[in-house]
């Protein structure tokens, strides 16, 4: 499957897709992807004026979207998932325009509708953010 098709399986759309390329995907196990950080992102003028820093919550969002791909997001809306919990998340260095985030997530456990992941985001082999998060399949909030 082509990279675009994989990412298109996410229910997300412009301007809220935070995975640029999937590098490795083992459905139900783990995924590795990249996200390029460009100065053209619309939030940089405000976060912060004269000092653009990628909001940490968007790094978490990137990891969660990759988690959705590991779960086999179909994009149909019938098995959409939502972020149910984040835990022990640490931001270890600022991420700025020009950086390339390497996103790595591992599925730790699925129980019923909930799936627990460990994830980290690296820039130049340094951990920029890491933590755990849980996605929950919730048909009621499926888009569309």
């Amino acid at each position: 499957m082509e990279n675009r098709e994989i990412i298109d399986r996410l229910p997300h759309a412009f301007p809220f897709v935070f995975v640029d390329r999937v590098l490795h995907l083992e459905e139900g196990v783990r995924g590795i992807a990249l996200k390029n950080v460009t100065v053209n992102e619309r939030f940089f003028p405000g976060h912060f004026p004269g000092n653009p820093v990628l909001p940490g919550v968007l790094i978490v969002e990137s990891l969660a979207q990759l988690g959705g791909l590991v779960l086999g997001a179909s994009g149909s809306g019938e098995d959409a998932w939502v972020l149910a919990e984040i835990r022990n998340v640490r931001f270890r260095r600022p991420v700025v325009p020009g950086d390339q985030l390497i996103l790595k997530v591992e599925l730790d456990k699925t129980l019923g509708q909930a799936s627990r992941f460990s994830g980290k985001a690296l820039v130049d082999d340094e951990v920029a953010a890491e933590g755990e998060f849980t996605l929950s399949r919730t048909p009621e909030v499926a888009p569309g």
Partner: protein
Amino acid sequence: MAGETPLNLRVKELIIERLGLKLTPEKIVDAANLFGGDFGLDSIDALELVVVLENRFKVKITDQAEGERVLQSVDSIVRFLRERGVE
């Protein structure tokens, strides 16, 4: 009520620590239902408990039905761990 065994206490401390409960171990009654009544834990808490029990005690909880059975109470968690040789 039988005297508290170290395993009971360890399970209670684990629950409190991982779920961030504002309780002391002695406030958790061994037979109390963890997912209703006093505690009201939810499915996300259940998953967190499964992950932490698996990692800490090197056991496997394979599916939701087993999870629900094991996580009913501190008693049922301890019984499950004992059945798998945890002391």
